[in-house]
């Protein structure tokens, strides 16, 4: 029987907290960019201008058809070189965090755009007619009438996707970034206490994600009773 020894955890807490900050940072910016870029993609996809709609469909289908870990590896291996030459960074600059964030954002946008597209389509067509009949331009009717209603309908789905995204941030371990999972792994490896650290990390992920999904449930009840 394995004897658990949790003693290396208290001392490692500051390091683990730094890791958590990276996880949260990646999540926050991927959610933010994902929603903005995802909204644009969704609007392109629904646009009557064919090339725009083809581009958006291609983008979404591409990113939804490849594993996230692959995208992260590409961004880890290839994109930093690009940025170095493009933006004239000294070779060997630590771009792991920025390229991981970029990979996440571009990948998640594909998923967000599908959620947002469904949200836009959930707004009755008559609303667009009414907005147009009042003299609003297409842009105004989207911005003032359709998107606010779409987002209201979508809040639970967007938050649920954010929770999934938070869990997925652990995949940045492929680029040896010390996010929360990576930090726990490093500490466990160093102290020979891998099992304890991974159990602890798992418990932390569980508590955060479970509480977050409970909050989403409550919000859902509040805004969509029935």
């Amino acid at each position, binding site marked *: 029987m394995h004897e658990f020894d949790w003693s290396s955890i208290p001392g490692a807490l500051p390091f683990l907290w730094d890791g958590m900050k990276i996880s949260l940072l990646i999540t926050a910016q991927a959610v933010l960019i994902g929603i903005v870029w995802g909204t644009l993609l969704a609007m392109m996809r629904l646009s009557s201008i064919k090339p725009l709609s083809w581009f958006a469909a291609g983008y979404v289908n591409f990113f939804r058809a490849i594993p996230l870990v692959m995208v992260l590896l590409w961004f880890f291996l290839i994109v930093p070189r690009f940025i170095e030459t493009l933006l004239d960074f000294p070779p060997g600059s630590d771009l792991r965090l920025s390229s991981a964030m970029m990979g996440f954002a571009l990948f998640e946008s594909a998923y967000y755009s599908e959620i947002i597209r469904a949200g836009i389509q959930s707004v009755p067509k008559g*609303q667009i*007619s009414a907005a147009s*009949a*009042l*003299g*609003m331009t297409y842009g105004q009717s989207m911005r003032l*009438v359709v998107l*606010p*209603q779409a987002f*209201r309908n979508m809040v639970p789905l967007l938050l649920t996707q954010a929770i999934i995204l938070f869990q997925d941030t652990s995949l940045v371990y492929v680029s040896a970034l010390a996010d929360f999972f990576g930090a726990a792994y490093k500490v466990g490896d160093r102290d020979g206490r891998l099992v304890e650290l991974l159990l602890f990390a798992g418990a932390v992920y569980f508590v955060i994600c479970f509480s977050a999904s409970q909050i989403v449930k409550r919000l859902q009840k509040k805004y969509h009773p029935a």
Partner: protein
Amino acid sequence: MIKIANVSKQYGDFKVLTECSTTVSKGEVIVVCGPSGSGKSTLIKCVNGLEPFQSGEIVVNGISVGDRKTNLSKLRAQVGMVFQNFELFPHMSITENLVIAQTKVLKRSKDEAMDKGMKLLDRVGLRAQAAKYPGQLSGGQQQRVAIARALAMDPICMLFDEPTSALDPEMVNEVLDVMTELAREGMTMMCVTHEMGFAKSVANRVIFMDQGRIVEDDSKDAFFANPRSERAQQFLAKILQH
């Protein structure tokens, strides 16, 4: 004010409108009726360009609707429209519903728009509901707000697309009353409706449509006294029985 000349529209092989022509002068009230699927809603949606049409011409206040160079948004801002399902914006309060297009489209100041909105709410008897949301009002109240919202733009004419069809019977009259008052004040109106009582008391002319064609276009007295076409006779017989 509104000139519709030889307008035809089709979806694929299906002809929705065939060679429709009529004119509406300033201050006239026209009731458009006919069996469902006869193209009457489509016809009035063509008037403000919500529905495109393939041939013919519609001119509203001197502006050609079908012309590509026409700024449709600008034209629509001058033509009020009321829909069967009200289509108030559910995420905005009644006040915001009345103000939004005034400020964003006509660029009126917030104060001016509020002032106008409140006056119109008064007029449709709903000032007390200003802070509520559309979902908290009855259908009849929502439709009255929708009329006020359209009037807030100071339209040169009003289009009504079956404004009472989605209402419970006891709420029909409160909406018709508002429309009647509007007609008496000299508003130019085109109303798609089955309310023959409204047509009899308020309309100047009645247009009867069947299978995408304008079958009758006559003064209301002539229309109700002796409709010329058999279809109109049948339609009237059915609808006036109740």
